[in-house]
């Protein structure tokens, strides 16, 4: 099951369990929420395409003691309604769950208006925002269930699934005391595709001000693969002054594309397809 399909199922479970949850939809995926509209018509609102007011309205709900879950396509939330996220929630210290779909170039064929490579780069500027990057539907469900009521501003990035196994928040996938480390962020790549590994592998699916990266000082070389724009993990590592590490970040390095096609074609064009990424990882670690 895709994360998109898992989302309404999870929301229904949570709304049944917690009467304080209100779900706001930006006229996206509405049909898949039809059961919830039938059961909880006052607590799920299709706010149409007024993304900024939807976020502002959500802040009002939060002020009134409720838990808003706000959902639409990534650029319309993070880019168009950024000021509302920043002021209405972060500055006011109000809590919410923002769930985006179609980040980076998941909507490849729809073009740049529907892309959002820079969401994490932007939201990571606010230290009070918790960013969740699940890479499969069970992991998404687990993260949402565990964190939706943590009284913080949470951003969940629903993307295409890459990883089959369930993994806990920010943990080692392989820890064999190697000299080098590969950090895989969210759904960047399935590590099983890499083959012979000369490095430990650490998985990051939550970026927050409390992220613990202390362990990386023991590694000589660090390769980071992140499926968005902005070299975020490298920035966090450098802020923590682990400067002796040699770091390579493999990520998207464009935000405006004048191309269509499918996601894999675009990823190949951007040097972020699996083969290109694996080649870069191996080259860096072989040196």
């Amino acid at each position: 099951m895709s994360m998109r399909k898992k989302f309404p199922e999870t929301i229904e479970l949570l709304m049944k369990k917690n009467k304080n949850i209100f779900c706001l939809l930006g006229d996206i995926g509405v049909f898949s929420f039809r059961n919830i509209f039938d059961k909880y018509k006052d607590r799920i609102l299709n706010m149409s395409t007024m993304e900024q007011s939807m976020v502002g309205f959500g802040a009002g709900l939060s002020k009134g003691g409720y838990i808003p879950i706000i959902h639409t396509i990534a650029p319309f939330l993070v880019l168009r309604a950024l000021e509302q996220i920043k002021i209405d929630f972060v500055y006011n210290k109000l809590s919410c769950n923002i769930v985006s779909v179609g980040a980076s170039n998941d909507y490849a064929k729809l073009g740049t208006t529907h892309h959002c490579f820079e969401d994490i780069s932007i939201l990571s500027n606010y230290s009070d925002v918790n960013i969740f990057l699940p890479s499969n539907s069970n992991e998404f469900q687990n993260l949402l269930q565990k964190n939706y009521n943590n009284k913080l501003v949470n951003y969940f990035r629903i993307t295409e699934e890459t990883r089959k196994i369930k993994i806990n928040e920010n943990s080692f996938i392989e820890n064999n005391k190697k000299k080098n480390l590969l950090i895989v962020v969210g759904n960047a790549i399935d590590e099983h595709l890499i083959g012979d590994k000369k490095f430990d592998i650490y998985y990051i699916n939550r970026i927050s001000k409390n992220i613990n990266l202390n362990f990386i000082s023991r590694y000589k070389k660090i390769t980071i693969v992140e499926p968005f724009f902005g070299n975020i993990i490298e920035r966090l590592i450098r802020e923590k002054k682990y400067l002796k590490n040699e770091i390579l970040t493999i990520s998207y390095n464009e935000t405006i594309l004048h191309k269509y096609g499918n996601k894999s074609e675009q990823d190949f064009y951007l040097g972020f397809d699996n083969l290109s990424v694996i080649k870069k990882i191996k080259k860096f670690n072989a040196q």
Partner: protein
Amino acid sequence: MSKKGLSIIRYDILKSCHITKEGHIGSAFSILELIYIIFQKYLKKNYFILSKGHASIGAYSVMHHLGFISKKAYDSFCNFNSNLGGHPDSTKMPIFNFSTGSLGHGLPNSSGLAYALKQKKSKKKVICLIGDQELMEGTTWESLHIIENYKIKNLILIIDRNKSDFRSIRFLEIKKKLSVFSDKIHEINGHNLLEIKDALKKSLTNKSFNIIIANTVKGYGIKSIKNNPAWHHKSPTTEELKNFKKELCL
């Protein structure tokens, strides 16, 4: 509140802006009577949102005169560690409910809060004060659609009609345009305490979404500031302060 009392509050605003070289005097003066009545009579049982956050010094001055904050706190306006900034910070001053400053945020926030109160079957209402320039913000009109669609009746929208728009794109026939969203529109003189009280009393007791168009004058009380765009974000010199004190008969 006597005319002299209001003049004292106006002079305090002028003094603060003179000392700090900050503050939007024109806007603070246009909402002063509205703020005075809201803070004096209607704050305890309702939520108030000052969407036009740049007029904050007007609210702080009223709060000081009503004893909500000390003189020391009032005098700290815009200091580094002050709770009173050029725009209100709700985490420091919860009385404002939302931090505002960027125009067009107050009404979406207010409509969400009013919807939450409606769900809780609370008797409290939300009073949202916006500037007329905020009618140019798309979010204001989006929110009016939200209010209409979700039948949010426990919300009072006050528009400080100080004609700020007249220096840019004019907002014409406000009442006619707003009448699509409310059949309870009260047009009043926003400097007349009795008219303000009456309109608020009616709005708080009926079961509709009410809009109060408060006709005000930007910089009301001082001739040279009145409707003078140069004074939108300007602080008085020592000489000007002296002259304004005389003009206010203090």
